[in-house]
């Protein structure tokens, strides 16, 4: 009997020791919840999260919310059930975040936002890593206006993101202020629905038909730049009408090199994923975190595209 008790105790002790050792070896897992993965931008954020997680020795899992707040909430629940330690999220919308944050806070999961921030007034999150859309709108508006004036006019047009998005409203606010301050007239804004180049070509054509005196086009998203460049090339107006674009991709970089686009304001998608992951890791390890990180979107012109500084920026924009 004594022998049996000893054996059981020994077995129990070894199980406890093994569990302790496992706990000590346990890797953190970070979940990235994307609003959708059908847009390059969110794939690039995912790449940044994955890259940083690997560097920090974290496991990585990925979920996509398919632009549905309900699916987003389901993803958060699945992530918690699965035992993730931290969440990096690009929310479907800022307004969809309060219940999600409450749920993750109850489960003591640090959360960092990447790309789109939480609803204003929310504080129960670790960090929000976004682009500074207002400042970018100001800078891009100023540069677009300069391009128009260099080309002998003051009329500018805009291919915009849907204005129901908070980031689009901030871009527009900054741009309008810059146009007013620098003496340019924003004669038309066309909002995208499909975020495709083909749609942007059609819109740029319509913009130029309705306003033939437009001398520069402000592209608020990457496909807008490609679409505007294509429309201008078809009309033989490449270089005669300036084009600026926000975001940046291999396609628009090539157009910049070809002189079809005059400036790209790079949004650091990969960088946002990297920084957001670093923030949740800091929260898990007790290191210092920063709650609001509004990253500047640096302007790169054709002449600078091969510089070391530009290469450093581009490395944080899309996977190399």
């Amino acid at each position, binding site marked *: 009997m004594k022998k049996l008790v000893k054996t059981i105790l020994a077995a129990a002790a070894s199980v406890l020791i093994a569990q302790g050792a496992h706990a000590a070896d346990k890797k953190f897992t970070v979940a990235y919840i994307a609003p959708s993965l059908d847009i*390059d931008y969110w*794939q690039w954020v995912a790449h940044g999260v994955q890259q940083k997680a690997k560097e920090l020795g974290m496991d990585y899992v990925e979920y996509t919310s398919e632009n549905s707040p309900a699916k987003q909430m389901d993803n958060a629940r699945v992530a918690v059930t699965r035992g993730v330690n931290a969440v990096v999220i690009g929310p479907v919308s800022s307004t969809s975040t309060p219940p999600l944050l409450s749920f993750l806070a109850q489960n003591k999961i640090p959360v960092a936002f990447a790309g789109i921030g939480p609803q204003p007034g929310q504080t129960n999150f670790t960090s929000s890593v976004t682009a500074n859309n207002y400042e970018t709108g100001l800078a891009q508006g100023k540069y677009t206006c300069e391009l128009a004036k260099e080309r002998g006019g003051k009329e500018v047009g805009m291919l915009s993101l849907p204005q129901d998005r908070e980031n689009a409203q901030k871009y527009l606010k900054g741009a309008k202020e810059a146009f007013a301050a620098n003496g340019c007239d924003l004669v*038309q804004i066309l909002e995208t629905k499909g975020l495709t*180049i*083909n749609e942007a070509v*059609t819109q740029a054509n*319509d913009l130029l038909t*309705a306003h*033939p005196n437009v001398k520069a086009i402000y592209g608020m998203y990457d496909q807008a730049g490609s679409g505007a460049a294509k429309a201008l090339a078809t009309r033989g107006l490449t270089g005669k009408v300036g084009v600026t674009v926000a975001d940046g991709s291999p396609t628009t970089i090539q157009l910049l090199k070809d002189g079809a686009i005059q400036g790209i304001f790079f949004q650091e998608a990969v960088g946002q994923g990297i920084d957001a992951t670093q923030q949740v890791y800091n929260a898990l390890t007790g290191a210092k975190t920063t709650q609001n990180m509004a990253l500047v979107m640096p302007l790169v012109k054709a002449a600078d595209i091969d510089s070391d500084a530009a290469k450093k920026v581009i490395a944080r924009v899309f996977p190399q």
Partner: protein
Amino acid sequence: MNTKVQHMTSKSDNASAPRMPSIFSVYRSELAIAAACVVLLVGVGIFVPAALSSGNFSNILQASAPLVIMSLGVLIVIITGGIDLSVGSIFSLTGMVTALAMANGFDEVTSSLAGLAVGVIFGSINGILITLVGLAPFVVTLITYAVAASLAFIVTNGRSLGVNSPDYWLLNSGEMIPGLPNFVLFCLIFTIVLEFVLRKVTAGRWFYSIGSSPVAAYLLGIPVKRTRFAAYVISGTMASFAGLLTVSYILNAEATAGASLMLQAIAAVVIGGASLSGGTGSAIGAVLGALMITIIQNGVNLIGINSFWQGSVTGLAILVAVLIDRFSHQ
């Protein structure tokens, strides 16, 4: 059995001593839609005179070309009483496959054939599942829509692809006939051929017979399964060709490029006078329907109306077109 159909037709023709119908009675609905297009254009022109410029007409034709070609394919399926929800995804996947093939060193012709094969394969899958397995067209094409949309992301891991081939733009914007861009030429050829086949060729009339009554068509000896199979293959292939034209135009392929086109193509066919219950419709009507949708989008942009209104305006246009069609037949 085919002789039976011809015999019955000729007997009926003799009995009623037919006169040559005028173009106005044959194309009454189409003329009404054409008139509506003109009214829309003039209406926009009042606000923005440049809407009536040759440059803007060229914009409209270019913007409508992929939709026109896709609509012609969808028309055939709808005439047979079916539906094809997969065309938008086939359009996107075709672009991705074509661009990927070129990125891997294949020449333009081989890459384009690979792209076209997407439409043939998916059209065949639709046709087989609908005719041989007996599944509902809505369910089958919903499945292939989802699969093709997914594959469009998988083949390039979701990345959009640029086309670096220097001459590929010629497919869309070159001029095999001087002064006539290829995209217009293709639209004209497809429209004329399809209109002729549907109206004058026996096999073309089979699509209508099947759409009106598949049972009666079967009893008359029409090869119902083969004809319906052909309708889906043609629809898939036309969607692929529309995808190729778009890639040639913008020299870029995107996984979501065709996302909005499927509903627009169905809307164009309905605006053009086809019934979703089958048995009616014409190629010219579908083309005019596609043009009307493009003119609405163009007008909304030119006037500067928020583009989110486009859906409402298009919906209203469909309603007006259906009402015109209804009253023109009374």
